[in-house]
């Protein structure tokens, strides 16, 4: 279960002055649910998800990861989270096996246990051929599989994904979509941001639309349709970001 309670984040920028990247944002996502965060570029998606993942501290408000306060106990919260974004890269000079071993150690997983999990994921995703090849030499799709393994290694009940399909080709995005579906069936709570509407429509149980750091809509697609009286999600989105004439 993920719960954000009035999180606000201010940035101080020399040129732009004070920026309210996230403004009193509250939302929740239960286990076995997928929450899609929609917003234009600069809406505050990355900032909000980074606060959940304890990478950033909120200026005010807080969030709970399985009832652990991310502000008070960031290290405890991190152990419950699998975090993946378009910015979470892999060490180019290491092999997938070494990377998994490394993160296994950091998550406090025994060597045997992380070897077993690597084998599991390797079978599911088909990574056997390149487990000992340096990441540098892998294709985008292969890297994505390694990243997924890295994210799921400690069996996190919470998944936080910031535009995980951004910049990926169709094959690599398909791996991500599969990961999300599987995670849902495993009763994890999943939150992911995107600006691709049909991706959200296909996968999400609930949608959170944010604009200028504030939540403009939140609920199931049915609920959003009722509220706006609009059928098409694209149109609902445009309406919610105040861009509909």
């Amino acid at each position, binding site marked *: 279960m993920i719960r954000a309670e009035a999180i606000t984040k201010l940035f101080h920028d020399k040129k732009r002055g004070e920026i309210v990247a996230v403004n009193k944002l509250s939302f929740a996502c239960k286990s076995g649910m997928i929450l899609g965060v929609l917003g234009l570029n600069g809406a505050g998606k990355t900032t909000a998800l980074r606060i959940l993942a304890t*990478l950033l501290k909120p200026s005010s408000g807080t969030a709970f990861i399985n009832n652990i306060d991310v502000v008070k106990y960031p290290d405890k919260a*991190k152990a419950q989270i699998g975090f993946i974004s378009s*910015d979470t*890269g892999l*060490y180019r000079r290491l092999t997938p096996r070494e990377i998994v071993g490394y993160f296994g*150690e950091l998550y*406090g997983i025994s060597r045997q246990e992380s070897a077993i999990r690597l084998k599991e994921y390797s079978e599911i995703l088909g990574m056997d051929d390149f487990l000992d090849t340096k990441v540098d030499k892998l294709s985008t799709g292969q890297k994505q599989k390694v990243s997924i393994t890295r994210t799921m290694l400690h069996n996190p009940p919470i998944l936080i994904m910031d535009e995980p399909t951004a910049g990926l080709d169709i094959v690599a995005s398909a791996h991500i979509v599969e990961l999300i579906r599987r995670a849902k069936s495993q009763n994890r709570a999943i939150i992911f941001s995107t600006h691709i509407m049909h991706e959200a429509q296909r996968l999400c149980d609930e949608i959170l639309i944010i604009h200028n750091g504030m939540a403009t809509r939140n609920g199931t697609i049915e609920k959003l349709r009722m509220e706006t009286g609009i059928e098409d999600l694209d149109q609902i989105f445009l309406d919610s970001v105040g861009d509909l004439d």
Partner: protein
Amino acid sequence: MSKVWTIYRKELLDILRDRRTIISMVVIPIVLFPAMTIGFSALVSMQLKKSQAEIQKISVDGAENFPELLDRLEKAKELEVAPSTDYRLAITQKKLSAAIVIPDSADLKIQSGDSAEIDVYFDAAEVKSEFAKDKVLKILSEFADSIIAKRLETLGAKPEMLRPLPIKSHNIASEEKMSGFVLAIFLPYMIIILTMIGATYPAIDLTAGEKERGTLETILASPASRFDIAAGKFLTIFTASIITALLSVTSLTATIGLGIASFAEMGQSPIAFRMQPLAFVVLVILMIPVSCLFSSVLMTISLFAKSYKEAQSYITPAMFVVILPAMVSFIPGVELDFKLSIVPIVNVSLVAKEALMGNFRWGYLVSVFLSTALLASIAVFVAKRQFEREEVLFRI
């Protein structure tokens, strides 16, 4: 703490797989000193041999004024007397190495007990010309001595009359001091710079480089605390830097020990260079806080940068802040005193120079070590603080 160890091992493996680290950390420090000394001494001795073996052409203007002197010059093995109309031009054009001008009726003046001024022209900027001048002066002074001896004889006096206090100076500098002297001037500088270069590449790679490749966010999202990450990275950079320092000091010692270094060889008597083992130990101990300082400062600077390029553009000017004070060992007469012993880098350069010359002043050594260690601790603390600052880690 175990996470620091995990991170340290991984970071070390990571940078050791990079050719650029290996070059700056291992290859350069090992190869630089032997290559420099071999190259330099080969060049010097080649030049020397060439200039010494060569027969130098000189011209003698007014030779008819003093046939006896001309005779002596012509008999000299390494000199060849050649005619010349414009000796100044000939010397600048390197057709002549030197020229002698004998004044009118010089031999009559000498016979009558008078003196005759001899002018010697040469080009001090040319090694060959210098050699020719030295040879000419030697011949002239031998000739003058023989004239004096003859004059004294006619007066019935002994040559000692003119040299009541023959002076012989004795150099008591130990062999270490003498041999270390030339090297001691610029080696502290080399070691300081190499220690810094050894830290530079890993510092950038593990901070700005990780931002660029997106791996910083990956590790920040893991349960490793910011302190674990900062400590693991710092230790890796420090290791690279101290290995660079160790290898360069070792390579330097070996170079000297094997006698490859022969700056003072000057063609004739090869002076065996020797460095006291104590100097080696002192240098290594001294480089520990220096490495710490460089590692943490470079880590702080590059963590702030968003990309490899940006980090390099900050570090290049920072290099000069180190290069200039490190050069203090080049300045003759700058001696270590208490004030200088607490000036960062300057103190290390000066105390390392003394140690290389076999001079160990323990009070100053301790003061240099402690002041550098204090500065290094502050720098480590600042570096750690940067890892807790979002505006540095997630700078846009």
